[in-house]
């Protein structure tokens, strides 16, 4: 692992969506890692500033959608003098290729990092199709 490396700055990735929002404001795409173990698919997303209660995870039609809202009321009464990044809500969705056991999905939020564990469904066996 490359821990000795200098950490570089990246601009936050703004969401470019095909659908438009009715409310103004920019959304950001959380930097994500996805890895697979024998038992589960894990999605790790960086969403600094998002609290547990403002997080929404949904899995529908094999599309995993994560929405994280930031509480910008904390910025009230603060006047920017110098800024290097912008803030906004986070959203990202993935189309899953694995069959997931929806009942056992677990989520954990630590230090602004969301870890989703999506256990693979037992019955997700390759389906054989015989040519008639």
């Amino acid at each position, binding site marked *: *692992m*490359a*821990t*000795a*490396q*200098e*950490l*570089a*700055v*990246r601009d936050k990735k703004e969401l470019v969506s095909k659908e438009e929002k009715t*409310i*103004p*404001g*920019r959304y950001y795409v959380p*930097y*994500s*890692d*996805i*890895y*697979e*173990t*024998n038992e589960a698919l*894990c999605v*790790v997303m*960086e*969403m*600094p*500033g*998002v*609290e547990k209660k403002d997080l929404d995870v949904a899995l529908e039609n094999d599309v995993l959608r994560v929405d994280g809202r930031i509480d*910008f*009321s904390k*910025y009230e*009464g*603060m*006047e*920017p*003098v*110098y*800024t*290097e*990044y*912008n*803030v*906004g*809500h986070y959203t990202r969705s993935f189309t899953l290729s694995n069959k997931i056991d929806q009942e056992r999905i677990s989520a954990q*939020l*630590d*230090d*602004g*990092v969301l870890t989703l564990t999506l256990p693979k469904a037992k019955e997700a066996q390759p389906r054989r199709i015989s040519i008639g």
Partner: protein
Amino acid sequence: MALFPDPFDALSSLQQALDTFRTSGWLASGPSGGGSYPPVNVFRKGDDFVVITEVPGIAKSDLEIQVKGNTIRLAGTKSVTYPEKASLHRRERLAGRFDRAVTLPVEVDADGVKAECRDGILALFLPRAQRDTPKSIQIA
């Protein structure tokens, strides 16, 4: 006052305000430049200053904050780990060490600095030094 006070509109104006001060000349008088990790936002709150930075995935114990005079040093290590038997599909999160010093163009009361780290956001509350606070002068 709007007929329907819209909280989403407030976000949009905050984003615009943050854009306006994007790399403003405020820090330019000091030796510290932008472009190092972690990116910081500096706010004025009354007489005091607040430095906010995004440090997702960095535990409190891996963060080192020092204040000397009006210079703040933010150092630490960010590590990203995976279980041993995992196949990676996507790898976008970065790991590494960082060390950044920011010199503010205002005097800071080093003893009164407070740091808060929650949900991947580090906030430093920097009270302005007494000798640096503006005083109103009465016209005789």
